[in-house]
Structures are given as structure tokens and as C-alpha cells.
């Protein structure tokens, strides 16, 4: 299937609100605008869809951003770069310019500073090809994010792919909405799924999911196994995707990591995966050469993600620059410790960090959310300490445990790990 030729092939797909309201793409109201570059400040996904449909029809340059992200500094920057602001407090560009036909801009998550703009097109964002069985997808992501565009372009470009739109601020009750709207496919971060399994397990079991997708954070075997236990007949997949390198790895076999033999494999139109020595802290880093790169990127791109070879698989474990904890000169990966803790049957979620300490400089500290029925406290702490000692070097064993009752979830559906 030619991706570029089919960007509006889903025009008759349904767009379903959390309240059950139903529309089709082709019925969306026209958005009055010329062909000037536009930054559309939107309240939610439903608000954003009219802009996406308009772009699909006229190809005018567009950036979609959630209103809450559009602060005065970003407004000024966008106007200076030739964008008109639409959707709230409308404003003309301070330096007008001609738009670039077909151009879409995404903002990176900005967790390490000011958001950066990455250029794409509907074609470069539409990374799912081929015939898919009809599905009703949940879209829980924030408008304008890469993950959001992945789900939206699926609904726009492939017939039979309906969307159920959820406000990311209201994911707490999503499973009930998804059951009512008969959602058959859902994509979310491991933290999103962990939180759902912990706090909405009864409602989740009622959702007729045939496709469960994870991405946006390292995906470990424990969460895949938990989801397969709830949905034994569903396809449980994980995806590695980012606004910089596009959707580059898709794994459907229900296992963490991807087969080692995928490294260096060259296939037309597909990304090439490689590993190189990590820039910091030893180990190896994932490198991707992708046909779905954002503009301005080409050739091999260092992803900044640390990988580990284990039993013929390449596991993506965490970030190269923030993952390492130095305990008295001995180094340990926070991601490796987190993975061990999250594999414990009484743990729903764990976060691992360095804590300043006398003599050794730092020790490993773990924040843990127990699974339903388990209780945080000295008994669980002793169990986890013993569990970690059996699986980690002495300096990697958490020396302090903090317990909380809820899994923290940001609007990006990630936690701060």
C-alpha cells in the first residue's frame, strides 16, 4: 500500500467522543484559514481533529499544540517563525512567510528544556501499512504529541480504523468508557497499563481488546506477561517510536526486546537498527537509520537509549545519560534495578534513583507502589530486599524503600523514570 496516496482513505471512519457522540472525518466542520503556517492551540483531541482534516485536504503548514503547553514564550517564538496562532487569543505572525505545503510540525516532549520542533508530513507519520482488520482504537494521548499523531493518522489513512477520543486528563476512568464504546485496540505507555491494571482491573477485563500496544517507555517482560494474562487471545505488541526517528521497532511476539538478528538488517523502506558503545557509563546505545526521520535528521541517529543483550534479544532499558548510579565507585543501571523490582509479584510499579549517602557517595533508593492486596511496609521491604539481593550485585540492591499508594502518571502517560 502506498502510504502517501492514502492519507484520507479513512474519511468514513468513526470519531467517537468519550460521551458516545459520533462523527466521521468527512463531516468535520471546515476551519476557516488561508494557507499561512498555523499553530492550532486546541483544548482536546476532538478540537484538534478539524485542523487535521483541513490539513489533509489543503496541505497547509500546521502545528497542533495543546493550549496548556502554549505559554507566552512559545507564542512569541512561533509568531516570530511565521506562524499564525489560532484557537485561542488569535494572533498574526510577527514575521510572515509563505507556508510549506504538506508540512506538519511536532513538539518534542521538552522534558529536558524548551520543546523542539520536528518536521514531519502525514506520510512520514503514517507508519502503519498493509491491511489491518477493522479496529476501534482508544486515543488517550495529548494532542500534537508523536504518539497522538500515530493513532490519529491510523484513523485518517486506513479504512476500518475508528477512534475513541479520550481527554488525557481523564484517563482514570478510561477502561469503563472503553468497555462502553467497545474499544478493540488500545495503545499506552507501560506506566499507563500498570496504573490501569492496578486501579481499573475489573473494568479493564470487560474491554474487548484484540490489540494491546505499549510504547513511549522501556517495556519489560513483567508488564507484557500481566497484559497477556488478562487478554490471552489479544495481540500484545510493543513499539519503539519517537518524533526524531519515527516508528522504528514493532514487536508482536509478546516478549521484551527484539531479536538480536534484527541488528544491521537492511530492508527497503524499513529502519536499520544498530548498537554502538554508549557515550556515557559503558554499555551500548541504540542507533537508528530510519526512512521516517523528522526533517533535518538523516543517516544513523543516536537515540540516547541504552540497550542490553540478553538471551538473543536486545532489550531497551533506559536513557544513557540519566540511568547510571555510582555507588562508591561501582556503577549500576537504575533501569536494571527497576526491572528486577517490577518483576516481583507484589509490585505494581517502581522508580529507582540515587540518594546521597555518607561513605559511598550515593546508594540506590526505590519508590514502590504495591499491587492491590499487597501492603507497603517493613515486611514487603524485607521481601524486596531479599529478592533484589538474589538478582543484583550488592551495590545495586536498594538500601532505602519508599512506598506510595498510587502510580504517578503525567499527561504524556509516562512517569518520571
Amino acid at each position, binding site marked *: 500500500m502506498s502510504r502517501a496516496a492514502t492519507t484520507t482513505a479513512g474519511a468514513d471512519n468513526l470519531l467517537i467522543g468519550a460521551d458516545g457522540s459520533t462523527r466521521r472525518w468527512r463531516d468535520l466542520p471546515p476551519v476557516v484559514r488561508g494557507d499561512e503556517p498555523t499553530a492550532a492551540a486546541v483544548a482536546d483531541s476532538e478540537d484538534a481533529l478539524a485542523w487535521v482534516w483541513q490539513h489533509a485536504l489543503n496541505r497547509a503548514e500546521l502545528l497542533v499544540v495543546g493550549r496548556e503547553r502554549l505559554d507566552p514564550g512559545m507564542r512569541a517564538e512561533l509568531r516570530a517563525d511565521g506562524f499564525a496562532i489560532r484557537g485561542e487569543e488569535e494572533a498574526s505572525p510577527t514575521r510572515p512567510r509563505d507556508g510549506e505545503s504538506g508540512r506538519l510540525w511536532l513538539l518534542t516532549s521538552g522534558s529536558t528544556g524548551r520543546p523542539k520542533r520536528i518536521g514531519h508530513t502525514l506520510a512520514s507519520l503514517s507508519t502503519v501499512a498493509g491491511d489491518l482488520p477493522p479496529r476501534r482504537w482508544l486515543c488517550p494521548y495529548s494532542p500534537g504529541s508523536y504518539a497522538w499523531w500515530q493513532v490519529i493518522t491510523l484513523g485518517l489513512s486506513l479504512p476500518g480504523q475508528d477512534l475513541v477520543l479520550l481527554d488525557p486528563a481523564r484517563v482514570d476512568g478510561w477502561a469503563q468508557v472503553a468497555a462502553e464504546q467497545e474499544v478493540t485496540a488500545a495503545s499506552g505507555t507501560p506506566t499507563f497499563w500498570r496504573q490501569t491494571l492496578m486501579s481499573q482491573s475489573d473494568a479493564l477485563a470487560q474491554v474487548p481488546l484484540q490489540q494491546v500496544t505499549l510504547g513511549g517507555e522501556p517495556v519489560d517482560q513483567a508488564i507484557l506477561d500481566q497484559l497477556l494474562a488478562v487478554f490471552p487471545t489479544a495481540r500484545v505488541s510493543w513499539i519503539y517510536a519517537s518524533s526524531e526517528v519515527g516508528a522504528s521497532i514493532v514487536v508482536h511476539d509478546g516478549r521484551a526486546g527484539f531479536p538480536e538478528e534484527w541488528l544491521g538488517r537492511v530492508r527497503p523502506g524499513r529502519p536499520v537498527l544498530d548498537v554502538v558503545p554508549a557515550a556515557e557509563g559503558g554499555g551500548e546505545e541504540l542507533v537508528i537509520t530510519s526512512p521516517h526521520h523528522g526533517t533535518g535528521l538523516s543517516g544513523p541517529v543516536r537515540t540516547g537509549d541504552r540497550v542490553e543483550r540478553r538471551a538473543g534479544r536486545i532489550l531497551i532499558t533506559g536513557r544513557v545519560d540519566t540511568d547510571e548510579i555510582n555507588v562508591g565507585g561501582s556503577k549500576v543501571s537504575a533501569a536494571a534495578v527497576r526491572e528486577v523490582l517490577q518483576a516481583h509479584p507484589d509490585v505494581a510499579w517502581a522508580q529507582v534513583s540515587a540518594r546521597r*549517602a*555518607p*561513605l*559511598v557517595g550515593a546508594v540506590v533508593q526505590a519508590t514502590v507502589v504495591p499491587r492491590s492486596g499487597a501492603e507497603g511496609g517493613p515486611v514487603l521491604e524485607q521481601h524486596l530486599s531479599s529478592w533484589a539481593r538474589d538478582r543484583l550485585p550488592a551495590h545495586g540492591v536498594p*538500601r532505602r524503600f519508599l512506598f506510595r499508594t498510587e502510580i504517578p502518571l503525567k499527561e504524556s502517560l509516562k512517569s518520571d523514570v
Partner: protein
Amino acid sequence: MAQVLAAQGKRLPGGETGDSAELAEIGFRSLDFSELALRVEDEVGMELNFEAAGLRAITTVGDVLDLLVELQQS
């Protein structure tokens, strides 16, 4: 100290000989001392200032307890 050791399946000697027990013999290592200091910090709700105590030899259980008492008072 007993809690730190117990988490590793070790035991703190009790009775009159407890304070004079050698750290090396009971398996209490630098990481254990670090953990103990953090437990005390969490308990008293303040960060301990180890520089204030100056350098000294810490070889017995009594040495550790004396140091921690001194740090809380400094």
C-alpha cells in the same frame, strides 16, 4: 543496626559484648553504614552533617553508635 543486618539475614550480637563486636566480624560494611545513616536521617527528619564529626577509626558497633549520637547532636 539490627534492622540493616536482619534485612541481609545477619544478626547483631546482643548482651554485654554487643558494643565491642567488630564490624568486620559481624559483616557490617560501608554500604550498611550508609544505609544506617539514611535510616537515622529519615527517622529524625534531618540530614546528618558527617564533616562535623571529623575523621576517626570506626571498627566496632559501639563506634558506630557513638558517631551517630554525636552527629545528631552537632
